[in-house]
C-alpha cells in the first residue's frame, strides 16, 4: 500500500532521515518508534508532502508521490494527523470537519454519511459541533484532528504522536479508537513515543535512531530482540 524506499530528508546540511526503507501492507498498522530527534516526524512530514525528500522514493498504491504537494498526497488517498494537533481554532468543529472533506466537497451526500459515522465514533464532536475548535480540550482536539483527517476518506492514515501531552485516560480512549479504525480496514502508520501502547496495537514496528532504521519486526520480535530503552535514552 505504502512503500518508502531509501528515503532521506535534510534540513540544510543536517540530515534528519538517512536512507530509510519500510512498507505498509493493506489494512496493516505499523508503528514507527524512536526517541526525540530520531527522524520519525520528519519521515511523516515528508510522506505527507510537507517536506521535500532529498533522496529515495515514496509510492502509494503503486503511484509515485515522492515529490507530490500536500494537496496531491491527500488526493492520492493519504491523510495526516500532525503531532502539533493543528485544529483551526477560530473555525467551529463542524467547519474543521467540513474542510477535512475538501477534496470531496461536491459529494455532499457522501460527506453527510461519513460525518454521521464519525459522530458515532466521536460523539463529543457531535455535541460540540458549533463550538470554535480552539475552545475544545486537548483530548477533544486530538479527536477532531483524527476525525477531520478521516473526512477525506483516506486509504492510509498517518498518525503523529496522538498521545502527546494527553491524560492517561484520554490516551487509552485514543488508542481504543485507533484499534477501531484498524479493524475497519484502514492502513495506519503510527509514530509514537509511548512504546508499550504503540506495540500493543501494531502489526509490525520499525525502530528509528539518528535518522536510520535500527530494528524492525513484529511487536514480539521487537520486544525480544531490541533494547528499546537504549534507543529511547540514547544508550
Amino acid at each position, binding site marked *: 500500500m505504502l512503500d518508502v524506499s531509501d528515503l532521506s530528508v535534510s534540513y540544510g546540511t543536517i540530515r534528519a532521515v538517512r536512507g530509510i526503507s519500510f512498507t505498509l501492507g493493506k489494512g496493516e498498522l505499523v508503528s514507527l518508534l524512536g526517541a526525540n530527534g530520531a527522524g520519525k516526524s520528519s519521515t511523516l512530514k515528508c510522506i505527507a508532502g510537507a517536506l521535500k525528500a532529498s533522496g529515495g522514493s515514496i509510492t502509494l498504491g503503486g503511484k509515485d508521490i515522492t515529490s507530490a504537494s*500536500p494537496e496531491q498526497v491527500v488526493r492520492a488517498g493519504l491523510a495526516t494527523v500532525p503531532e502539533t494537533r493543528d485544529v*483551526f481554532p477560530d*473555525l467551529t468543529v463542524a467547519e474543521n470537519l467540513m474542510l477535512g472533506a*475538501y*477534496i470531496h*466537497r461536491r459529494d455532499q451526500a457522501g460527506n453527510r454519511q461519513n460525518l454521521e459515522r464519525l459522530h458515532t465514533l466521536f460523539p463529543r464532536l457531535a455535541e460540540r459541533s458549533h463550538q470554535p475548535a480552539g475552545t475544545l480540550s486537548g483530548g477533544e482536539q486530538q479527536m477532531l484532528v483524527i476525525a*477531520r483527517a478521516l473526512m477525506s476518506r483516506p486509504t492510509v492514515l498517518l498518525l503523529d504522536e496522538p498521545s502527546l501531552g494527553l491524560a492517561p485516560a484520554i490516551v487509552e480512549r485514543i488508542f481504543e479508537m485507533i484499534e477501531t479504525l484498524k479493524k475497519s480496514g484502514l492502513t495506519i502508520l503510527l509514530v509514537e513515543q509511548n512504546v508499550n501502547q504503540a506495540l500493543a496495537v501494531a502489526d509490525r514496528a520499525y525502530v528509528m535512531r539518528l535518522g536510520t532504521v535500527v530494528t524492525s519486526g513484529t511487536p514480539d520480535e521487537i520486544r525480544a530482540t531490541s533494547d528499546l530503552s537504549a534507543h529511547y535514552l540514547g544508550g
Partner: protein
Amino acid sequence: MAFAIQFVIDVLSLGGAYALMALGLVIIYGILRLVNFAYGELIMVAGYTMFLTSGSGLPWIIMAVLAVVMAIVFGIITDYAAFRPVRAKSVTAVLITSFAFSNLLQNAALLFISPRPRNVPLPEIFSETVSIGGAITPVRNLITIAASIVLLAAVAFLMRKTTLGIAMRAAATNFTMARMLGVPANLIISSAFALSGFLAGVVGILWIGRIGTVVPGVGMEPLLIAFIATVIGGMRSLPGAVVGGFLLALIDTTLNYSLSQDLLKFRDAFTFSLVIVILLWRPEGLIKGPASGQRT
C-alpha cells in the same frame, strides 16, 4: 441635530471606504503574511479603466463593472508577476517584487496615458446633494455607505458560509495544515488576490468618485490608509481591518471638524500621533488575528 447627522454620515461614508480598503489589504496579509504594496495600483487600474472607456458610449454601470473586472484581473496578475515566482523565497524578495510591480504599473500609466489628472466619468447622482434632518450631504456619501454595508456583508457571508471562504480562513491560520487537507494553495492565494482586486476596484470607483480625476499616484493614499487601518485593527484580523477603518475615519472626521483652519494642514500629524497612542496601548492592534500562522 443636523451637525450630528452630518458627522455620522461623514464618519460612516469615510469609514466604509477605509474599511473596504483595509479589508483588501488584510485578506492577502492574513494568508501570505505579506503586504501587497501594489494594492494602490489596483485602484489606479480601476480609475484608468473608467477614463479609457469614457468615450466608448457604454452606460456608466458597464464602465464601472469593467473597472472592477480589470482590478480583479490585475490583482491576479500581481500574484503571478510579483508573488508566485518568489513566494517560497525570502520576505524581502516579495517586498521588493511587490514594490517593483507597483512602480511598473505607475510608470506604465505615466508613459502610456499621462502624468496629468484625467477626468473620470461619473453619473450625475455623484455630484448631487440631499438634505437629511437638516444636514446637507452629497449623495455619493450615502452611496459609499450603502456599498460598504453590502460589500462588508457579502465578504462576511463569503468568509463564513462558503467552502472557499472557510478554506481561506483556515489557510490564514495554518497554511500548511490547510494544504494537508487537500486545500490547493494556489487556488486560495489567487482567490485572495481576486477578492482583494474586487474590493480595490469598488473602492477605486468610490474614492475617485470623491475627487473626480485619476492620476498615476492615485493609489498611494488609499494604500497608506489601508495600511494604517490594518495596523490599528490588527494585521491578521478581518473584523480588525473593518474596525480599524472606521476608527481611522472617526479620528480623521473628528479632527476635520474640531481643528482650526491653521491647524487643519497638520491633521495627519494629529492622526498619526493618535495611531501611535493606540499602538502603544495595543501593539498587536485592536483585534488579535488567528492564534497561529505561517507562510508557505
